[in-house]
């Protein structure tokens, strides 16, 4: 339908500020890969191979996001996070772990983690989550309305408008759009949508999310010259004002 709603991953990288990241991970190969991959997208990543050292580095609070493995030598990941939180260091933490079941996840978040990504993961997924975490820290919290281009979503009146056109959305479509708009300009992965919009933490085999997105897209983009809801190949989705 709308000709240009698909983006290359690289095309989404233009407007990002560089971040300082700390990776606490004992597997050297995995860490090297991450450091390199983050450098390629313009972020700076430090690496620490054990819990004690990682905690010491993280304590100065200069990082934007910490990426912490759960099973670490000297001090395990969850205890590193608890120690940080006890010292009032509120740097966002993403936990990486081979333990991917629901209760492992709950444990991780309870210890003070902000997000949880089971191994193995795709770099695009990790990057998308890191950027959302960093932005959250940047202060953009809950707002009563979001605006992208001429698309406007009002959280109080539960209404969506594109230009002068009132758009009628189902409750779930509204929440989907709300999440996308809250993270406008950022890549949002399918798993992130499933977790945050539906609150499911399992993999639904078939890509059910794609169909929900295309429904939403037909409501907000169809008939408008400028598409706002983009598919980011190999990563997920992004809502942004293409004209900018």
């Amino acid at each position, binding site marked *: 339908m709308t000709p240009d709603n698909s983006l290359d991953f690289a095309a989404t990288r233009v407007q990002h500020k560089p971040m300082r990241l700390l990776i606490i991970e004992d597997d050297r190969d995995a860490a090297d890969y991450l450091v390199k991959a983050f450098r390629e997208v313009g972020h700076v990543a430090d690496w620490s191979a054990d819990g004690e050292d990682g905690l010491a580095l993280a304590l100065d609070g200069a990082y934007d996001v910490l990426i912490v493995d759960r099973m670490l030598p000297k001090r395990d990941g969850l205890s590193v996070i608890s120690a940080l939180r006890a010292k009032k260091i509120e740097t966002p933490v993403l936990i990486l772990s081979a333990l991917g079941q629901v209760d492992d996840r709950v444990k991780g978040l309870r210890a003070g983690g902000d997000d949880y990504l089971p191994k193995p993961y795709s770099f695009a997924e990790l990057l998308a989550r890191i950027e959302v975490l960093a932005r959250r820290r940047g202060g953009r919290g809950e707002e009563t309305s979001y605006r992208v281009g001429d698309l406007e979503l009002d959280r109080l009146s539960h209404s969506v408008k594109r230009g002068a056109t009132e758009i009628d959305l189902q409750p779930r479509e509204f929440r989907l759009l709300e999440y996308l708009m809250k993270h406008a300009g950022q890549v949002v992965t399918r798993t992130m949508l499933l977790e945050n919009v539906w609150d499911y933490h*399992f993999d639904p*085999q078939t890509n059910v999310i794609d169909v929900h997105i295309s429904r939403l897209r037909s409501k907000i983009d169809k008939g408008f010259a400028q598409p706002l809801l983009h598919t980011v190949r190999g990563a997920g989705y992004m809502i942004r004002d293409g004209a900018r």
Partner: protein
Amino acid sequence: MTALGKLVRSTAFRLTLVYLVIFALYAAALLVYFALNTGRLITEQITETVDDEIAELTEQYTIGSWRQLTTIIENRSLRPGSSLYLVTAPSGQGIAGNVGSLGPGVIDKIGWSETAYRRLDEQETAQHSALVRVTQLSGGFRLLVGRDLEERGRMREIIVAAARGSVALVIVLGLAGGFFVARRVLRRFDAVTETTQRIMAGDLSGRLPVTGIGDELDRLAMNLNDMLERIEALMRGLKEVSDNIAHDLKTPLTRLRNRCEDALRSAKTESDYRGALEDMIEESDGLIRTFDALLMIARAESGQARENMTAFDAAEIVHGVAELYEPLAEEKGLAVKLDAPEPAMIQGNRELLSQALANLVDNAIKYARPVESGEGRAEKPPAEIVLAVRQEGDRVLLSVADRGPGIPAADRTRAVERFARLEQSAAEPGSGLGLSLAAAVARLHGGELRLEDNAPGLKVVIALPHSPGG
């Protein structure tokens, strides 16, 4: 340990011994009491008759004279029996009676005494004992009347003999009974021990013998058997998992490796390489999915996920899953219908149950091809997937029904097994673990998974226990 030693050391035998001692003591005490009472009764009877006789004789003496008394005494003395009589003159001389000799001083003591005596008609050596009473008559005469105590002695002997006999009998019978009971119980325990040793040695199919009497030992054996059943099932599951991991994960791994080799050998352009790499990522994502599903099943079956159970309305999660899949189904030309008329409370793990349902709906969408449009369309069943929640007795039934080809009755059991993919579905992507995961989740919740004929189509039912508490 010798067989006898083992027998003697057995709990049953020791218990028998304790009972035996208690019983023997009881029997002995009873006989002693009996003997004492009998002796007292005999003595009482003697004193009574002697008192009567003395009263009668004294009267005779008062009415008549000592002559009349002596005549009566002489008469009575001639009668055979156990009675003793003696009348003495004031001088102390015996003038009538059948007493040959008495203990010294007996005749001088007024009242009752027990004494040795000899009858007149007996030899010097004869010696008996008797209970006698001496009364003073007027005029210095004395009268002695007594009864031989032989009867009492005999009675005592009989009782002592009876006591010995019965205690001996109690001991013999008790020991024999103890041996018998102990051996019987021991044999059953030995059988249990033997079986458990065999089981510990690795033969998990062994079961403890149950006699069918329904006693404590039987109940214990049945409980242990149930435990063994569970252990065996768990072990079987574990073995299945490792077999399946070995067998079925190696297939996609081989495929992955082949693609790498193929790309190295034949790819020329950058886009060839890119295509090959994208294929490989897709293949490894599939592997990860399979692996996750296997871990999830293992975890569900081990019961670990029980910690996160809460009470909620089953209709709620069915709504959620239906809503998630509705657009996908619609895209494939299928309608999703919800049939959840009333809330049905269950106790469970919301996430796992949602995942199980999602798997079932995903399967239904994959395999339930919509009917081709064209002629005779009116007769064909509607292309729809029905998600229903029903409460039946103490069960809550969550069902996903489609109008696809269904599964032949013969294949239904196999369909729930891990990795089983029926021939006709081999072309569809997927790990083939959806049904087994749903079955594992159902079992985790104390329920079961049933495959039913939807005539036409397949109806998968997760039957869970109803949790009225809410």
